[in-house]
């Protein structure tokens, strides 16, 4: 279970990298990141964190609402 959580956060991390890369990196004329790109990445991460927190809260609210307690 612990391993699963580690796995999960790794997936989130790698997923975020992919997302922000796709969002912010549009050309390959040079091998280093440009100023505009690093700025975009920063905003992307910050925004994703805000998004993630909000969607996580809503998800849990909904999930609790929906869950019927098992009768054991």
């Amino acid at each position: 279970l612990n391993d699963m959580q580690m796995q999960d956060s790794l997936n989130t991390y790698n997923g975020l990298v992919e997302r922000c890369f796709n969002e912010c990196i549009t050309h390959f004329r040079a091998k280093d990141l440009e100023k505009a790109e690093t700025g975009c990445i920063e905003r992307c991460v910050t925004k994703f964190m805000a998004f993630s927190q909000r969607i996580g809260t809503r998800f849990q609210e909904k999930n609790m609402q929906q869950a019927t307690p098992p009768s054991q």
Partner: protein
Amino acid sequence: MNAPPNAEQIDPVMVAVTEMQGLADLFSRMQNVCWSKCIPNVREGILAMGEMSCVDRCVSKYFDVHKMVGEKLQEQMQKAQMQQPGATPS
């Protein structure tokens, strides 16, 4: 697979783990879908008002669709078990 004989078929721990994985999978898909539906760009590092309410509604609708698909699936499977269609024209 040579686990103690009787714990094999319905291990409650595995059921719980699978349920959690199902929930994690649901969440991660919902997250992807709602991001692409509600977040058009990252020109700002914060969530705009409209984006916030879009996210809230997206979660709400996603849960409703999830529930509806589950019900519909069960209904369909019951129907399928009762009539069992044979012919499949090509």
